[in-house]
């Protein structure tokens, strides 16, 4: 490795400071007894206390988590089936078509996804709320799971499948005893990504949710539109902690599998 000289180090340090400063700024003021984001008057945990006694907010957190877990689980099942379908498609043209359709929702802007799902749900007469949000989250998580699982299937040597058949395995045995165990790390990574996409989604949920149902992102948006409130700071500090734990978990999973499955960034 080349030695890092002075200017490059300063440049990198500056980037890191800019990236982290706003987050740390938020967390810092979450301890401000002054109630503003510019004058630090004294240390307090009041905002956290208020947050934790706010039952409405706790229900919203619960909603968000339930939506995330359910949508991640269901989209993982559909996504794994999809990845298998794509990987074992005989014709190249079928494979490419499936892959392109798979990627449509990944490259589509959230507004388009949200607006088009809003039309879809209204057309079929679905009441906007828990079910519509859940369906939307499943829908946009499926292609992510596919993309996380597919490379794992494709890296698997075909001779492994032949070996299993050679040793007497039926097609079902091959799937349950060889393919699924082999791609388990990919399945976990896919589930995890789906989970974080769902937890973090704002725009799509904003479109397809009704009056009675809110997730955390939507709640933060409506709070922030009303202006600064240090409740949000406390909330973001907790979320930051939670994110770090999740990332550490993800890092651990991919590290354990040696070959990282592609590091994900999210929006």
């Amino acid at each position, binding site marked *: 490795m080349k030695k*890092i000289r002075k200017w490059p180090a300063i440049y990198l340090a500056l980037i890191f400071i800019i*990236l982290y400063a706003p987050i740390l700024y938020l967390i810092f003021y979450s301890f401000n007894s002054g109630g503003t984001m510019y004058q630090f008057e004294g240390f307090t945990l009041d905002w956290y206390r208020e947050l934790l006694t706010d039952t409405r907010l706790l229900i919203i957190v619960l909603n968000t988590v339930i939506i995330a877990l359910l949508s991640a689980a269901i989209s993982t099942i559909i996504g794994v089936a999809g990845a298998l379908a794509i990987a074992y498609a005989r014709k190249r043209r079928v494979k490419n078509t499936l892959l392109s359709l798979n990627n449509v929702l990944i490259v589509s*802007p959230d507004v388009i996804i949200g607006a088009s799902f809003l039309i*879809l749900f209204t057309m079929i007469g679905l009441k906007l709320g828990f079910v519509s949000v859940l369906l939307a989250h499943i829908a946009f998580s499926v292609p992510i799971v596919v993309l996380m699982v597919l490379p794992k299937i494709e890296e698997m040597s075909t001779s492994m499948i032949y070996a299993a058949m050679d040793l007497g395995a039926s097609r079902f045995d091959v799937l349950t005893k060889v393919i699924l165990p082999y791609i388990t790390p990919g399945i976990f990574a896919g589930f995890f990504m789906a989970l974080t996409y769902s937890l973090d989604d704002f725009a799509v949920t904003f479109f397809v949710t009704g009056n009675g149902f809110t997730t955390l992102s939507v709640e933060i948006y409506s709070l*922030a539109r009303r202006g600064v409130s240090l409740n949000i700071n406390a909330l973001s500090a907790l979320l930051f902690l939670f994110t770090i734990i999740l990332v550490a978990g993800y890092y651990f999973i991919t590290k354990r599998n040696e070959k990282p499955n592609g590091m994900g960034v999210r929006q």
Partner: protein
Amino acid sequence: MRTNSRNFYLIPYVLWIALFVVTPLLLVLYYSFFDIEGHFTLENYRKFFTPVYLKMTLSSFWYAFLITLFSLLIAYPTAYLLTKTKHKQLWLLLIILPSWINLLLKAYAFLGIFGTYGAANSFLEALGIGGRQILFTDFSFIFVSVYIFLPFMILPIFNSLDELNPTLLDASNDLGGSSWVTFKRVIFPLTLDGVKAGCQIVFIPALSLFMLTRLIAGNRVITLGTAIEQHFLVTQDWGMGSTIAVFLIIAMVFIMVLTGRRKRGIL
């Protein structure tokens, strides 16, 4: 795998594609031909080509272009320097970590930092420049957008730089190329795929993120995304919203063709 088992994998996945990929897109197209009272009309398309909407589209593209450009200018050196660090995967993870934090929280942080009495103004006053209105300006919108998109631009560039075979650089040096020539003739062309990927990942959302314009830019900046949200959720004119969405989709397809097909997945 034979036909029967392939069909078994296909069922849930193809259902998903039909219901949540193809149908919504067709619905958006369908709705774009209806006015607010539900009559079939081409009025929406005519309206889109009036100066008001064209100007909005143009300015949306201009902002997206600026955001992409600044992201690229900052991200490329960062990615390059990151590949030279010792524990580059760890540093990369740290660069990406902020992207895992809810976008709304980061935007909210800038409400505090750029606020009238915020850290930015204190800093300017300390420099003797004096405080000024930062929030709700073009500058704040572009700054916050670049801040948010930076990790998404860094990652693909980092990956393509990282994949670069180091012997190619040795070969270029060996053939008498200076550092600048090596960069211009070898490194940059070979990492162009990463740059294109990054631009694609940044440009499309930059056209469509509506929450940033709402929170940071006030109503000074209206992007295609903001306009769609406005029509769907505020004025309830789904027809006009769909028409703008159709043009956003066309723009998206155009950008994807322009930035070329990439070998890897989007993540």
